[in-house]
């Protein structure tokens, strides 16, 4: 540089520009965006600063297209790659960014937190908007990638647990630039399918585990709003237990993983079968006690009537009555047997045919010692008789102290 030379302003600026452009051509720069304007031209002007200093910068539109569609916002910490130059007309030096991205996953998290606060204040996560899930879903929509672990898990859990279901997969990508738009389209498709073709009872919406960036589509504002607007109950199941996306918050139910979404969407069919067995037992008990009750009452009524008839006629009539009661009892058991046979054939639910069943319920059988015919009345018993009682487990011998005929 010649000390005698007097520069014009333009010359000096041009020289400074050459020096800066040569010396600072590939610079990584970290800072916080303090001011930002998007010009009509598409260029993005910003000021980057740290605690003590700041620098003006620009990202030209021509360089923007290659960038990830991440929202850059004021107050955001960013990492930029670029070069220094001088804007000669103003003599201002500035940073030209070819890459501008939020600084690390922490920043992604922070931007999700900001969105979360905004949507929360709009009421999108309010419990009052949550739709209840059906107890016994028949048609289940699944919005996820056809090749991912999520669909495999949902499918395998449901084929074991609730094979009565029909699964309808609405394939979509679940990560990358296009994922939010595809997820929104898949929700729309499922809604229209449900309205026009087969009504869906519930939708499982999600994907398997991945990095925070992989899961980001499930916290996209458009996706969250689409779930909110969906008329079908939605279960969100994104990533692992610890990952919470905004779709989890807006959905009607959040499941920690896709596999657990499949578990909470439907009951276990073996539980249901067990419940049916219990009902059958309950019905049988009710019917049996009704029949017993009825025959006892019948006998009692007749007795009180017979007391009014004088003389020896009573004995004869009582004998005939006993005969009648036997016939009635037999016919009742036959009726019961005929009707239970169908069920016994159809399933192994009903263990009525098992002679030990009453014993398992706590009833016992009593025999006169040495006899194989169970005792039904007192006709063969007197004080001092030895009797054998058979329980579910074990037998015991007793001696009769008193015979009480009621």
């Amino acid at each position: 540089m010649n000390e005698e030379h007097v520069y014009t302003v333009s010359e000096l600026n041009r020289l400074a520009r050459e020096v800066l452009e040569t010396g600072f051509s590939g610079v990584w720069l970290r800072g916080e965006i303090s001011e930002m304007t998007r010009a009509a031209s598409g260029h993005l002007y910003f000021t980057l600063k740290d605690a003590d200093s700041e620098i003006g910068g620009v990202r030209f539109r021509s360089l923007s297209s290659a960038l990830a569609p991440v929202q850059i916002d004021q107050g955001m910490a960013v990492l930029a790659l670029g070069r220094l130059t001088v804007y000669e007309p103003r003599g201002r030096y500035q940073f030209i960014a070819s890459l501008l991205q939020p600084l690390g996953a922490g920043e992604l998290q922070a931007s999700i937190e900001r969105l979360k606060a905004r949507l929360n204040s709009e009421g999108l996560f309010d419990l009052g908007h949550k739709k209840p899930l059906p107890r016994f879903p028949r048609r289940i929509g699944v919005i996820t990638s056809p090749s991912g672990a999520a669909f495999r898990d949902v499918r395998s859990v449901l084929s074991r647990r609730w094979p009565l279901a029909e699964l309808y997969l609405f394939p979509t990508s679940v990560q990358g630039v296009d994922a939010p738009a595809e997820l929104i389209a898949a929700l729309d498709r499922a809604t229209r399918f449900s309205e026009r073709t087969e009504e869906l009872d519930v939708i499982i919406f999600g994907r398997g585990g991945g990095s925070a960036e992989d899961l980001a589509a499930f916290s996209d504002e458009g996706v969250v709003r689409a779930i909110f607007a969906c008329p079908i109950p939605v279960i969100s199941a994104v990533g692992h237990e610890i990952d919470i996306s905004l779709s989890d918050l807006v959905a009607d139910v959040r499941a920690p993983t896709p596999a657990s979404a499949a578990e909470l969407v439907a009951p276990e069919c073996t539980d249901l079968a067990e419940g049916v067995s219990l009902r059958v037992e309950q019905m049988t008990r009710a019917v049996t006690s009704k029949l017993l009750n009825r025959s006892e009452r019948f006998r009692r009524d007749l007795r009180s009537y017979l007391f009014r008839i004088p003389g020896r006629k009573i004995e004869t009539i009582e004998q005939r009555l006993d005969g009648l009661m036997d016939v009635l009892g037999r016919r009742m058991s036959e009726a019961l047997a005929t009707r239970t046979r169908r069920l016994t054939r159809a399933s192994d639910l009903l263990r009525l045919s098992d002679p030990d069943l009453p014993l398992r319920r706590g009833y016992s059988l009593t025999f006169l010692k040495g006899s194989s015919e169970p005792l039904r009345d007192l006709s063969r018993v007197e004080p001092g008789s030895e009797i054998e009682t058979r329980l579910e487990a074990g037998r015991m011998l007793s001696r009769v102290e008193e015979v009480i005929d009621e």
Partner: protein
Amino acid sequence: MTIEEALSKLEEITQNLEKEDLGLEETITLFDEGLGLAATIKEQLEASRLKVEQVLEKTHGTFTLEPLDLP
């Protein structure tokens, strides 16, 4: 009848059977119906196989179902 309807019908029958004032004929009829329902439900539970379809929309509003080939 859906399984949900069958289950609630079975529940209703059980409750009716437990009523004191039910006649003999009604008891037998209800019991018969209840056992039939129970058998039907059980058969349905045992016979079901999960159905899986992929829903594609080649042109807007026209849905096609395709079986899914998974590893």
